[in-house]
């Protein structure tokens, strides 16, 4: 009886696969980041602040949901603990790790980022970044052989410095997805180094028929327009304040 059932189930999944080739499921990513040296002696409150923020990163979880042609990457929603003082550092950690929602559609070759900034929700649409440079460097991540791909995010009006992005992807899991809207590599990204922050996969689940819908709330804007707006606002507010001080 039991064997029969299992057999039936196996058969069903088999049919499911062969009919739809529906490769869907989810990946859990966690993050960490390099700490700053907090030297012996009188402590620097700023380094301390930074390190306290970094130490809270392990409480954050990110989810990547995917199906055949779409993926959605976002932070796991969780209630903030009331341990009064720590709340602030967790908020700061969330900002550090990113609270944006990344929606990717391989068919349209587009990434949509839902991002809250300056008190407004934006829907930033951009083409999938494809200018990966593959290297021959490899490493093992939990027994998966990973290849290294690199990309430089060039400085723009918002980011004063270039940001180096390194993706470690494994061809053994042939899914073209990854964290933070980084996609289009011949294998799942198990580790992504975004500047100082590392996103690393801890759990992969395969399921049938994961529905993914595009975020719709927010002001639709292109990434160039977004950059222009933000830099204008930084000028308007940031520097005004600085000159006053």
């Amino acid at each position, binding site marked *: 009886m039991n064997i029969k059932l299992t057999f039936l189930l196996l058969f069903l999944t088999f049919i499911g696969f062969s009919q739809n080739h529906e490769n869907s499921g989810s990946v859990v990513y966690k993050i960490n980041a390099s700490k700053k040296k907090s030297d012996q002696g009188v402590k*620097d409150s700023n380094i301390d*602040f930074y390190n306290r923020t970094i130490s809270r990163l392990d409480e954050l979880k990110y989810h990547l949901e995917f199906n055949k042609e779409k993926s959605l990457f976002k932070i796991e929603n969780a*209630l903030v603990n009331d341990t009064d003082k720590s709340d602030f550092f967790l908020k700061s950690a969330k900002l550090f790790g990113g609270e944006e929602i990344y929606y990717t559609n391989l068919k349209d070759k587009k990434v949509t980022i839902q991002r809250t*900034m300056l*008190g407004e929700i934006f829907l930033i649409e951009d083409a999938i970044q494809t200018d990966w440079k593959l290297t021959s460097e490899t490493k093992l991540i939990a027994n998966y052989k990973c290849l290294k791909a690199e990309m430089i995010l060039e400085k723009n009006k918002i980011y004063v410095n270039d940001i180096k992005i390194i993706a470690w992807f494994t061809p053994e899991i042939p899914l073209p997805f990854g964290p933070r809207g980084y996609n289009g590599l011949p294998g799942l990204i198990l580790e992504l180094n975004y500047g100082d922050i590392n996103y690393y996969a801890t759990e992969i689940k395969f*399921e049938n028929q994961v529905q993914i819908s595009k975020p719709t709330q927010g002001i639709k804007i292109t990434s160039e327009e977004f950059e222009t707006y933000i830099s204008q606002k930084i000028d308007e507010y940031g520097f005004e304040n600085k000159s006053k001080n």
Partner: protein
Amino acid sequence: MKLFHIKNTILLLLAGFSSYAQQIKVSGKVTDSLQDPLAYANILAIPEDDSQGVRFAITEDNGSYQLGLSKNQTYNLTVSFLGFTPYTKVLTTTEENLIQNFVLKENPNQLDEVILNYTPPIVVKKDTITYDVSRFVTGEERKLRDALKKLPGVEVDRAGNVTVQGKKVTKVLVENKTFFTGDSKLAVNNIPADAVDKVEILDNYNEVAMLKGLQDNEDMAMNIKLKEDKKKFTFGDLEAGAGIKDRYVIHPNLFYYSPKTNVNFIGDLNNQGVKSFSFRDYLEFEGGFGKLLSDASSYFDLFNSDFARYLNNQDYTANTNQFGALNIRQAINKATDISGYIISSNSKTNTESHITNEYLNNEDPYFENRTTTNNFNNFFTIGKLTLNYKPSFEEDFAYNSFIKVTNNDSKGLINTINPIQNNSIATNTDIKALNLKQNITYSRKLSKNHTGTLEATYTFQNDKPLTEWLTNQQILQGLIPLEDDVIYDILQTKRNSAHNVNAIVKDYWVLNNFNHIYTSVGVNAAFTNFYNQDLQQLSNGTINNFNTAGFGNDFGYDFLNTFVGLEYKFQIGIATFKPMLYTHFYSWQTQQFEEKSNHSKALILPQFTTKIEFNNSEKINFKYSLNARFPGIEQLANNFVLNNFNSVYKGNATLENQLYHTVSLNYHKFSLFRNLNLNLNTNFNKKVEHFKNVTQLQGIEQYSTPVFFDLPEHSWSVNGAISKKINKIRYKLRSTFNYNDFYQILNNDTHLNISKSVSSTVSAETFFKKLPNIEIGYKKDFNAYRSSNIISNFENDNFFAILQYDFLRDFIFSGRLCL
């Protein structure tokens, strides 16, 4: 370094070019065994020759792909698709383009869950430029600024601002630790040049991680490494000045620096009313803004402390300051830090006030004109010692000890003109007070889901006010038994002492992402004593003690509150709810001389909060709570006390607790993008059980005592503000509405008073960077007050204009006009 970068880019460009030139195209289709196309399948080409790059392609929607490979190379080709067995093939390219189709076979052995045990290693990175100072200096440099000027790419302006390759240094560190306030001016003008070994420029130094995403960043920090034998030095400055009308100022500022010890002394001696020690300095003494940020409440505590108020107070007719502040930070080891400060101040202030009081208690209201002048002499010393111990991020221990000694005396003259009497009263007061506070906080992560905190505070307070009233007319006739004399000399001695112990233990239990339970157990204990003696000193030397007329307390009040609290916090969608229930057990004892009385009571006090967060900048907060408040000792002490030259007070030992409901609702929206700021708040308060002063008024003299009162009183307020900036002008509209009803018991009549007020302001303010800025506005108030049979309404119109203009870089012109 720059040069290398360019070279590298050219090299890469060339490489890209050459490989591109020698490329061929491999194209085709990937399908399953039924010839259905496989979309988004991977084709990975790993060359046998390491010098060639790894190539890849992903199939289109229709299963087609294009792969660019180098000519005459051998590649290991892998075609893979999830749910299918990967297909591998060795492919050797020629000079020709190729067409390759692949058929993948389904793989029935599928993964359904993978757990990866892997954490990327953490590295410590720094973007650093290091200057070996000895290579650039000649030995004639005196201060750091002279040495910095010799370094290539570094500029120092006259004020002491440092720029490196065009970027401003915003923070100065010495041996990796912030140098006092971190201000570059202090460092470059004071650190001796011959102590400097190396200068490190840390690019992209992010003070606040939060800003990292927004401005990635022009911040630069400069780290000064000191020579091994020159790690300690002292420096300072002295500001001294004299001016017209005997005005003077002396302001020394001294520093001692060593890697483990920082000492800063600030002195101030002036009669200009200027306080050289600012609130900012005070913050720095408390450990800097960054440290206080972690606990917003402690920042506000500090901001509202009487010392901060003293720093900001500018209302006086004459002012003399003598001031000294010393701050020490000492590192014991990696995890332990001790910091402390002591501040002493002696100031003389003269104040003067004119007040007109209208008494509306009977058919014929009358006025009193009162002029008060005071000569204050304030002396205080405050000291604080903080010990921080943080062995890991899971554990945190802090000990604080705070002491404050005050000695204030004042000489004043009160002049009152009213229909009953015209009188002058001289007053002398002398208040000696001691305030001691010790506080421990300890928190520890107990397990993955539990965090425990312990907080304990002990405070001791001892006030000894002495007051003397001198007048040549009888005052408070019938209330105090004055004996005839030429000058009536009334003397009051008060003593107020309190020991207070609070302790609370709390467990934070995270059930899952959306459900938390917090439990707490706590105790508050207060042991207080109040003593007063009021008497008349007769000119013949005898003493007329008022205790014959029921004056004088020797009152003890011991209060114990133990409580258990349960809070459940949960989230549904964008809304967070937190119902709370606190059960309190109170017991207290009062004692007047030998007479004791014991009481006990239990109360259940619920609270409820809701927060709806539409996004980071649009929120609704709702709060409800039922509160109990117990009387202070002076409200209980049931013998007479002289309160002022015209009032006598008597407590009531039978008072229990006040009970009131508070409800508040806030809505807040803020959008920098739309330059819009919107706020709406409403608060409602209902007192169900409270105390009420029963007052007997005769002329301007009064006697009052509190009684328990259970007629409800309400207060309600609504306020809102909206501001929007369009181009360079910000428009603002602010409105408030207040409603209050309360009872007054005066000369055996109980009446209900109702007051209502509405106030609205419209204004516009310009935000030009260089032009003068102006704010103009109009304010309108309506007030209605109803008390028994008197109804009064009044309106107020106010037009205002404020002009501000920065000119010649360092001057600010500001003007204000009110109509």
